[in-house]
């Protein structure tokens, strides 16, 4: 056993830490382009602190989680199962999917909701190497005029936004920071 076991790295005070984590997650989802600190969990590598905290805040036995590519390790599966009880699933049926953009692609694998229940769509937690308020220009709900956010793949995300009110929603995590992109955001790439 190394220092990190499946039992360690959870919330020390779940009600309070989860409340803080949710406030950060809700703020970024309501204001695309904003970046917030998100910490509390110490997940096994390669999962970031922000992504781990997000999973502990939102996942439980009722949510299927897909761990993509390099994130689908024994250590991570055991950690997630111990702390949340969330069933690990394939990409197609998942409520949450975690991984790098390359490993999560293509987006067409994930649920986008139905016309009558657009909420039944996958939330993707995309681990990024960097997270900056630069790059693609965002507009739409939650954004006063425009905002900027470094996006991994603007064309694919534009296609997702075109499905509105259906589509996936995204959290972008990097170390202990988080940003979000709901399907309602319009994306423009500078010419």
């Amino acid at each position, binding site marked *: 056993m190394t220092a990190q076991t499946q039992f360690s790295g959870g919330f020390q005070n779940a009600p*309070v830490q*989860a409340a803080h984590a949710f406030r950060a*997650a*809700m703020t970024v989802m*309501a204001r695309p382009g904003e970046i917030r600190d998100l910490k509390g969990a110490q997940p096994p590598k390669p999962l970031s602190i922000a992504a781990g905290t997000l999973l502990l*805040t939102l996942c439980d036995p009722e949510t299927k989680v897909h761990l993509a590519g390099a994130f689908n390790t024994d250590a991570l599966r055991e950690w997630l199962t111990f702390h949340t009880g969330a069933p690990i699933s394939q990409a197609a049926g998942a409520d949450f999917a975690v991984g790098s953009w390359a490993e999560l692609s293509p987006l067409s694998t994930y649920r986008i909701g139905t016309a009558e229940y657009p909420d039944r769509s996958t939330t993707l937690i995309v681990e990024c190497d960097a997270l900056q308020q630069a790059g693609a220009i965002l507009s739409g*709900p939650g954004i*006063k005029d425009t905002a900027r956010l470094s996006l991994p793949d603007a064309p694919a995300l534009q296609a997702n936004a075109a499905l509105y009110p259906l589509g996936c929603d995204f959290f972008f995590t990097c170390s202990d920071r988080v940003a979000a992109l709901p399907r309602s955001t319009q994306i423009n790439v500078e010419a």
Partner: protein
Amino acid sequence: MNEYNFAYLDEQTKRMIRRAILKGLAVPGYQVPFASREMPMPYGWGTGGVQVSAATLTPEDTFKVIDQGADDTTNAVSIRKFFENTAGVETTEETEKATVIQTRHRIPEAKLREDQIIVYQVPIPEPLRFLEPRETETRKMHSLEEYGLMHVKLYEDISQHGAISTAYAYPVKVLDRYVMDPSPIPKFDNPKLEMDAIQLFGAGREQRIYAVPPHTKVVSLDFEDYPFEATKADHPCDLCGAEDSYLDEVIMDDAGNRMFVCSDTDYCRSRREAGHVGRLVEENTA
């Protein structure tokens, strides 16, 4: 305080509500179904708003509750006490100092800021419910963006009364897509629905959560020749003299005397403290 989990609800319930809030924010105006819990208060007393507040509050928040604009009515007092006891949060009556505001049927007069969250208590979240009682049908109507029935209803208002007589729970269209019930706020408040704060709506009995992110386009339904009008009693407040606030009419005696007073008690109090004087105060001091 130690007898309760922070903010009363268990963590799994909060996670379920939090997931619904996030999907609600991603699809503004769409009603997300959620597994509403029994709360230690009757339906109709804000069980939906209380659950949304419980899932949203952090220990550092300052919490304000209003009922028809007032901080001191039964519903507001009991919910404020509930969270003082179960979450140990600071509470306030001042709109400016609050970070989370739970409201029944009003939006405060003071402009809400970016760092504030407003939680609405919603009795009937479905704007089409009184026109079409079947959930299967209204759900289909939302999915097909079939809102003609709502316009017929507003048209019938005009044909019967000469104007759109809907005065509260006035339907709005959010982001050019979903028709939404803004909860029974007076239509005077409708223009404020495009605000800087995050707006969350909770309907406990009907088990729905929906949301409007900041700076989201919210349009009150109307016709070109009968445009939407945010109306209020044509009067200044009799206590503080405000001409821009929503007023309650209070019957004073059997002789037909009445007064008009700000429904937002904090707004009225702060104006009076700033030296503004209304008709009744002038008469009493004269």
